[in-house]
C-alpha cells in the first residue's frame, strides 16, 4: 500500500473516530459518563494515537496521548468527570479536528499543543494520587460476581485456578484466538471469567496480548497443568502459567515474575494467608461484562470498500436491470415466432428469464444497500453544534434527533449536510426566542428543535421543527421590500405563503444585525440550491407564536431512482418521482392566462403552467373528447410548476446516464435512461424547466430570484 492509500485510510478512520469522540464526549457531559462511554472515548483516543503515530503526525499523537492519560484516570475511577474535563476534552477535539483538516489540505499537521497539554496535565495533577502507569493491571481483576461463582464451585469440590497466558504479537486475530483458547480450556475445566473480556480486546493494538482466565476445575494441579500444556502446544502462545485463584504464582514458582495483585475487597477470596496482599484501597471496578451491552463490532465482519468500486458495481447492476427487462420482451416476441414444437424450450427460456429477473432485482437491492448509510453519521454532528451555538447566543436549546437509523445513499448524505446545518442554525438563531420572551409567552424556558428522518416509499423525508416564534409574513414583506427583492405592487399581490417562500430568495435575511451564526443572507439560498441539486423539494409551514416546520423530501439514491414516465408528443420522458408533487386531470378551460403567463388554480394556490411542447418544438396534444389535459405538478426546492403532458405511461426504476459532452448541456434535460424496449428516454431537468419558462415569460418567482 502506498502512502496515498494509507493517507486515505488514515483520514477515513480519523473522521470516524473524531465523530465518535464528539458523540461520546457529549454523552459524558450529559450523563456524567458511564463506563462504556469512558471506555469508548478512551478507545477512540487510543486508535487515533496509534494511527497518527504510524503516519508520523507527532502533534496529533502527543495530544491524543495526553488525552489518553486523563481518560485512563477517569476510567480507573481516579478522576471525577466535571465541567473542566469536558471542556478540556472539547478543546482537544477541536484541535484534533483542526489537525485533521491540516493533514487533509497540506499532508501534515503542526500546531501548538502546549497549552492544551498543560491543561490536561493540570487536571491530573489536581488529583492527589500519584500517576499510575498505563497497564492492564489497572482494569484487570475479576469482579465480585465471578468470585462468587468460583466460591460456589469450590463448595462443590472444584479447585480455583487462574491461567495467565500471552498471545504472541505475530498472531492475527487475537480476539478469535483468545476465544478459541477459552473454549479449549473449557475442555478440562470451567472458565468463569476472562480478562480482558472478548470485546475489550483491541485488535489494532500492537504487541502481545496478555489474557487471564479464572477457572474452576475438578482435576489435580499436575493433571491440569499437563492438560493445559497440551492445549497450548501449537498455539501462538508465548507464555503460559497456571496461577492460584488470586493470580499468585503457585508454590514453588516464586522465581517467576509475580504479577502485581490488586486484591478486590469484594466477596469471595476469604482473607487467606497472603500477608503481602495490598490493602483494599483500590476502588472496586464495576463489572465489565464479557457480553456487555455494547459489544464492539467484531473486526472481520465489515470491510472498507472504495466508493468508486461500489459506483462501478452499481453501474453494472444498472446494465443488468435494463437487459433483464429486454430479455423478457424479446422472449415474448420469440414465442410468437417459433414453431409449436419448440414450446418446451420456450417455457424453459421463460423460467430462466424469470429467475434472472428475480436475481437481478435482489442484486440491485443489495447493491443499493451497500451504498446506504444511516443518517446517524450526519446527525451526530449536530448536537455539538447546537450546544456551542446555544451557549454562544445564551438560549437554552434542546435538540431532539429522531430516525437516526434511517438509511440513505451516501452521496445524498454528503449533499444534505450543509442545508441541514443552515436550517438548524436558522431555527436556533431566528426561530427560538430569547429566554424572557419565551417565559412571557408561557412557553418552557428551553427551546426545542426537532430533527426527524424517515422513509416514505422511495423517498426520505427530513423535517426540522422548532417551537419558536414562527415566521412573520409581514416582516418578510418589509424586509424584501427594503432589499428591493420585490416591488410594492408584486408584494401586494402575494399570498402569505408566497411571502414566506421569499426567505429562499438570494440575498434575503431577516436578522436586523448580521451575526456570525446565521443571517448573512446566504443560508436559505444555499439550502435551496442544494436541495434542487438533489432533485428534492422543500416546504415550510409556520404558525406565528407556535413555531416553524421545514419539510425536505429527497430521493433515496441518485444513481437508480424511481421515475414517472410521461409522453410528450411522440417521445417518452422520465421525471424523478421525488420531484413530482401531484398528478391530476384538468379541463382545459381551467387554464387561465395571467398577464401572458399561463396558470392554473389548484386549491388555494395559483401555479404557473408550462406547455413543455413549446420549448421542445413539438405540437401541443390534440384536444381530447372530454377536453381534459393531464397535468403533473413538479417541484424544485420550494417552487412548484404545472406541466402539461400528453399521456402518463407509468413508473419504473430508472438508471440515470449522462449523455456525454458531445451532446452537451441541453436546456430542460438532465440525462437519459434506457427503457425496457431498449429505447432511450430523456430525463427532464426540473430546475432547467423552471428556467426555461421563467426566461420567456418572466414568472413572478424568477423576477424575485433575479
Amino acid at each position: 500500500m502506498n502512502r496515498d492509500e494509507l493517507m486515505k485510510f488514515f483520514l477515513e478512520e480519523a473522521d470516524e473516530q473524531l465523530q465518535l469522540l464528539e458523540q461520546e464526549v457529549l454523552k459524558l457531559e450529559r450523563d456524567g459518563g458511564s463506563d462504556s462511554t469512558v471506555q469508548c472515548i478512551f478507545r477512540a483516543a487510543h486508535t487515533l494515537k496509534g494511527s497518527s503515530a504510524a503516519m508520523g503526525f507527532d502533534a496529533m499523537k502527543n495530544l491524543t496521548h495526553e488525552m489518553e492519560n486523563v481518560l485512563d484516570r477517569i476510567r480507573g475511577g481516579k478522576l471525577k468527570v466535571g465541567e473542566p474535563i469536558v471542556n478540556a476534552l472539547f478543546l482537544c477535539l477541536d484541535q484534533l479536528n483542526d489537525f485533521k483538516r491540516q493533514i487533509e489540505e497540506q499532508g501534515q499537521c503542526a500546531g501548538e499543543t502546549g497549552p492544551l497539554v498543560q491543561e490536561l496535565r493540570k487536571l491530573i495533577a489536581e488529583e492527589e494520587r500519584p500517576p499510575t502507569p498505563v497497564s492492564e493491571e489497572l482494569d484487570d481483576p475479576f469482579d465480585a460476581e465471578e468470585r462468587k461463582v468460583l466460591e460456589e464451585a469450590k463448595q462443590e469440590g472444584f479447585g480455583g485456578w487462574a491461567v495467565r497466558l500471552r498471545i504472541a504479537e505475530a498472531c492475527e486475530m487475537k480476539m478469535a484466538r483468545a476465544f478459541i483458547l477459552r473454549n479449549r480450556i473449557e475442555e478440562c475445566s470451567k472458565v468463569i471469567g476472562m480478562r480482558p473480556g472478548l470485546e475489550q480486546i483491541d485488535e489494532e493494538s500492537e504487541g502481545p496480548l496478555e489474557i487471564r482466565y479464572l477457572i474452576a476445575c475438578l482435576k489435580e494441579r499436575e493433571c491440569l497443568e499437563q492438560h493445559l500444556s497440551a492445549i497450548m502446544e501449537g498455539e501462538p502462545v508465548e507464555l503460559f502459567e497456571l496461577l492460584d485463584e488470586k493470580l499468585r504464582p503457585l508454590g514453588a514458582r516464586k522465581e517467576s515474575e509475580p504479577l502485581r495483585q490488586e486484591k478486590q475487597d469484594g466477596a469471595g477470596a476469604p482473607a487467606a494467608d497472603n500477608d503481602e496482599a495490598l490493602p483494599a484501597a483500590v476502588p472496586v471496578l464495576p463489572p465489565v461484562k464479557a457480553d456487555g451491552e455494547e459489544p464492539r463490532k467484531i473486526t472481520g465482519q465489515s470491510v472498507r470498500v472504495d466508493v468508486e468500486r461500489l459506483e462501478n458495481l452499481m453501474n453494472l447492476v444498472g446494465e443488468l436491470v435494463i437487459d433483464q427487462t429486454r430479455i423478457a420482451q424479446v422472449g415474448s416476441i420469440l414465442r410468437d415466432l417459433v414453431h409449436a414444437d419448440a414450446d418446451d424450450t420456450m417455457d424453459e427460456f421463460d423460467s430462466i428469464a424469470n429467475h434472472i429477473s428475480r436475481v437481478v432485482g435482489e442484486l440491485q437491492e443489495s447493491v443499493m444497500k451497500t451504498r446506504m448509510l444511516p443518517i446517524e453519521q450526519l446527525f451526530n454532528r449536530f448536537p455539538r453544534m447546537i450546544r456551542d451555538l446555544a451557549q454562544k447566543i445564551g438560549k437554552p436549546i434542546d435538540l431532539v434527533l429522531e430516525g437516526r437509523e434511517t438509511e440513505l445513499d451516501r452521496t445524498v448524505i454528503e449533499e444534505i449536510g450543509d442545508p441541514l446545518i443552515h436550517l438548524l442554525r436558522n431555527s436556533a438563531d431566528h426561530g427560538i426566542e430569547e429566554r424572557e420572551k419565551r417565559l412571557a409567552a408561557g412557553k418552557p424556558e428551553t427551546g426545542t428543535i426537532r430533527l426527524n428522518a424517515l422513509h416514505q416509499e422511495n423517498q426520505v423525508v427530513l423535517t426540522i421543527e422548532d417551537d419558536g416564534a414562527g415566521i412573520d409574513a409581514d416582516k418578510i414583506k418589509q424586509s424584501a421590500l427594503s432589499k428591493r427583492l420585490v416591488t410594492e405592487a408584486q408584494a401586494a399581490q402575494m399570498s402569505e405563503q408566497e411571502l414566506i417562500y421569499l426567505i429562499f430568495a438570494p440575498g434575503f435575511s431577516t436578522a436586523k444585525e448580521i451575526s456570525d451564526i446565521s443571517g448573512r443572507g446566504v443560508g436559505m439560498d444555499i439550502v435551496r440550491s442544494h436541495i434542487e441539486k438533489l432533485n428534492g423539494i422543500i416546504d415550510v409551514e409556520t404558525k406565528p407564536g407556535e413555531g416553524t416546520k421545514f419539510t425536505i423530501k429527497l430521493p433515496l439514491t441518485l444513481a437508480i431512482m424511481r421515475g414517472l414516465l410521461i409522453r410528450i408528443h411522440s417521445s417518452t420522458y422520465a421525471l424523478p418521482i421525488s420531484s413530482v408533487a401531484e398528478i391530476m386531470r384538468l379541463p382545459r378551460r381551467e387554464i387561465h392566462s395571467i398577464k401572458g403567463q399561463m396558470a392554473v388554480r389548484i386549491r388555494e394556490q395559483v401555479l404557473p403552467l408550462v406547455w413543455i411542447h413549446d420549448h421542445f418544438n413539438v405540437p401541443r396534444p390534440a384536444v381530447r373528447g372530454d377536453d381534459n389535459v393531464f397535468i403533473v405538478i413538479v417541484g424544485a426546492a420550494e417552487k412548484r410548476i404545472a406541466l402539461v403532458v400528453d399521456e402518463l405511461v407509468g413508473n419504473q426504476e430508472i438508471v440515470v446516464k449522462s449523455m456525454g459532452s458531445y451532446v452537451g448541456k441541453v436546456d430542460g434535460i438532465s440525462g437519459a435512461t434506457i427503457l425496457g424496449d431498449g429505447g432511450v428516454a430523456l430525463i427532464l431537468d426540473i430546475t432547467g424547466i423552471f428556467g426555461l419558462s421563467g426566461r420567456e415569460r418572466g414568472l413572478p418567482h424568477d423576477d424575485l430570484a433575479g
Partner: protein
Amino acid sequence: MEDSGRQFIVIELGGERYALPISDIHEIIKMQKITVVPNSRFFMEGVTNLRGKIVPIINLRKRFGMEEADPTRATRIVVVNDRDEIVGMIVDRVRQVIQFSSVEDSENSTSGIDSHYFSGIGYLEDDFITILNTGSTLR
C-alpha cells in the same frame, strides 16, 4: 498499425462516395431506434442505446445540407471515436474497405459540399474518393 492507418471504409451518401479512415471507426451498426433530443444541434438526430451506453447520433445528410431521406435496409450508423466518446453518423450505405494507392492532402473537393469537412483525396488506379475529416464533420 501502419496498414490500418492507410485503410479506409467507403460510405455512400446521396449517390456520392466518401471515405473514412478505418482508425476513426468504432463500429458499424444497423439503423435502430433513435430518441430525439430537443433543442440540440440542427444535424443531431438524437441518442440511441448501444449496449447500455447512450450514444449521440448525427445525420450526415442534414450535416451536409442534403435532402433528407427515409432509412432503407441499407442505412447504417457508422460509430466513430470522438475524443473520449463515441458518436454515430447515419449514412445511406457502407460499401467496402479499401486501400488507396496514394492519398493527397487537399482541401479541394469535387463535390458540392463545403470543403471544410474534407481532409484530402484518396486515389485508386482509375478513380478517386474524397476523404472525410471526422473531427470537423462532427463539430
